[in-house]
C-alpha cells in the first residue's frame, strides 16, 4: 500500500476538487431551479408552496446528476492509476483494461446460461501465473421477459442471468468435450448427459453434465473434485464451472460493481481499497487452489 501512497494522495486531491466543484454547481443550479419554480408557481397559483416543493425535487435530481457526472470524471484516473497499480503489485506483467471485457460469445460458449438479451462486460484483467494464462472481467447478462395481461398490455422486465466475475484460465490437461458443473438442483433432471461421480460431497454440491463421460472424469479427478469443493466454500458455495476447449471457466457471482469510484467516498479509505485488493487476490488465487500449474501430463 505504501507504493500506492503518492497515487492515492494525488487522486484524493482530484476527488476533493471535483467534490467542491460539484457542490458549487449543485448550489447554483439548485438556487436557479427553486427561483424559477417559485416564479412559475406564483404566476400560476398565486402561492409559492407548490413551487418550493417541485423546485426542491428538481434540485435533488440535478444534484444527483451533477455528482454522478463528476464521479465519472474521477473514474478513468482512479481505474488506470490506482486499480492498475494494485493489479501490477499482485500479478507480475498483469494487464488491466477498464473499458474492455469478455465477449458475449465467450459467455455463451460456457453453456451454463441461456443466451442473454442484454450483455455488458468491463474491467478486463489478464496475466499469467506460472505456466497458466488467465483473464477475468465483470459481466452482467440479462434476459428480457415480456408478459401480456388480459387487457393486452405488455410489461417488460429484465431478469439477471448472471452478475459477477467470469474467470477463464488455461487448464492443465487437453480435452475436446464440454463439461458443465452446475449447482446441485432437482430441476436439473431434464438436462441430459449427467455424469454421476464417486465423491458424495461433490455430488451434494454439484450436478455434472458432459458430452463425454470419460473426459469428464479425466478432468474431474478425485483430487480436482476436492479442490473444487474447497474453492466453492471459499466463494460462499456459489460457483459454476465450465470446461471446454482445454480451458476452465469459473463464474463467481457478485452483486456489487467493483473498481468504481465516487466523489463522495474518500480514495484514502483503506477499507474499500483492501476489499478491492482481496477480490483480485482471491480470483487470482484460483489458479493455485485448482493446482493449474502442475503440468505433469502431455499438455505443457
Amino acid at each position: 500500500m505504501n507504493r500506492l501512497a503518492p497515487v492515492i494522495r494525488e487522486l484524493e486531491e482530484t476527488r476533493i476538487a471535483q467534490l467542491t466543484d460539484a457542490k458549487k454547481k449543485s448550489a447554483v443550479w439548485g438556487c436557479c431551479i427553486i427561483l424559477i419554480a417559485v416564479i412559475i408557481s406564483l404566476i400560476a397559483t398565486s402561492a409559492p408552496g407548490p413551487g418550493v416543493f417541485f423546485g426542491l425535487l428538481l434540485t435533488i435530481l440535478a444534484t444527483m446528476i451533477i455528482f454522478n457526472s463528476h464521479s465519472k470524471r474521477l473514474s478513468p484516473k482512479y481505474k488506470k492509476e490506482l486499480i492498475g497499480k494494485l493489479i501490477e503489485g499482485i500479478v507480475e506483467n498483469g494487464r488491466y483494461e477498464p473499458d474492455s471485457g469478455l465477449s458475449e460469445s465467450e459467455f455463451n460458449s460456457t453453456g451454463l446460461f441461456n443466451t442473454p438479451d442484454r450483455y455488458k462486460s468491463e474491467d478486463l484483467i489478464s496475466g499469467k501465473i506460472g505456466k497458466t494464462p488467465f483473464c477475468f472481467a465483470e459481466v452482467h447478462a440479462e434476459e428480457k421477459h415480456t408478459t401480456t395481461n388480459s387487457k393486452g398490455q405488455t410489461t417488460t422486465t429484465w431478469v439477471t442471468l448472471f452478475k459477477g466475475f467470469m474467470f477463464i484460465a488455461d487448464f492443465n490437461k487437453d480435452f475436446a468435450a464440454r463439461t458443465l458443473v452446475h449447482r446441485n438442483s432437482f430441476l436439473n433432471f431434464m438436462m441430459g448427459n449427467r455424469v454421476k461421480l464417486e465423491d458424495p460431497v461433490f455430488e451434494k454440491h454439484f450436478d455434472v453434465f458432459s458430452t463425454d463421460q470419460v473426459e469428464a472424469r479425466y478432468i474431474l479427478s478425485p483430487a480436482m473434485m476436492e479442490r473444487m469443493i474447497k474453492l466453492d466454500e471459499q466463494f460462499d458455495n456459489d460457483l459454476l464451472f465450465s470446461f471446454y476447449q482445454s480451458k476452465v471457466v469459473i463464474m463467481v457471482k457478485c452483486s456489487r460493481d467493483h473498481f468504481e469510484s465516487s466523489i463522495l467516498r474518500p480514495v484514502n479509505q483503506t477499507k474499500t481499497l483492501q476489499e478491492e485488493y482481496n477480490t483480485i487476490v482471491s480470483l487470482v488465487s484460483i489458479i493455485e487452489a485448482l493446482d493449474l500449474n502442475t503440468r505433469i501430463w502431455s499438455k505443457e
Partner: protein
Amino acid sequence: MSATTLSILCTIVVVLICTFIYNSLIGKRNQAENAFATIDVMLKKRYDLIPSLVTVVKQYAAHEKELFAQIAETRSKNYADMSDSDKMELDKSFGQASEKLMIIAESYPELKASDNFMQLQRAINETEEQLSAARRAYNAAVTDYNNKVESFPSNLIAGLFKFSRKNVYTYNHE
C-alpha cells in the same frame, strides 16, 4: 367399459412397461460395454508406450533392465491377440514397471534429466490419468446397470431375460 376392454388395456400397459424396462436394461448394458471398450483403448495406449519405456531403461540404466524383463516380454505379444485376462495382466505389470522406473530414476540423475525420460514420464502420467477416468466411467456404468438389474420391478424382467450382474473393475497392482 367392458371387462374385456379393460383387460386388453391392462395388457397393453403391462407390455409397454415391460418393453420400456427391457430397453432400458439393454441401454445400460450397452453403456457398460461401451465404457469397457474405452478402457481397452487406453490399455492399448499403454501397450504402445512399452518400447519407449524399455529403450529409456536400456539407454540410461542398462543394469536395471532385468527388472523390466516381464514388461518387455508382454510387448512380444500382439495386442489384438490378447485375451481380456492378458490385458488385465498388462495393466498390472505396466503399473509396476512405471513405478519401478520412477524409483530407479532417483538413482540415475542422467536418466532423470533426459528429454526422453521426461517425455515418457508425461506420457505415462497422461495414459494413467485417462485410464483411471475410463475405469471410473466403466464402474459408474456398471453400478447403474447393476442397480437396474437388482431393483424392483426391473429385476423381474432382468431375471426373465437373463441379465446378470456385472463386476466392477478393481485395480490393484500390488
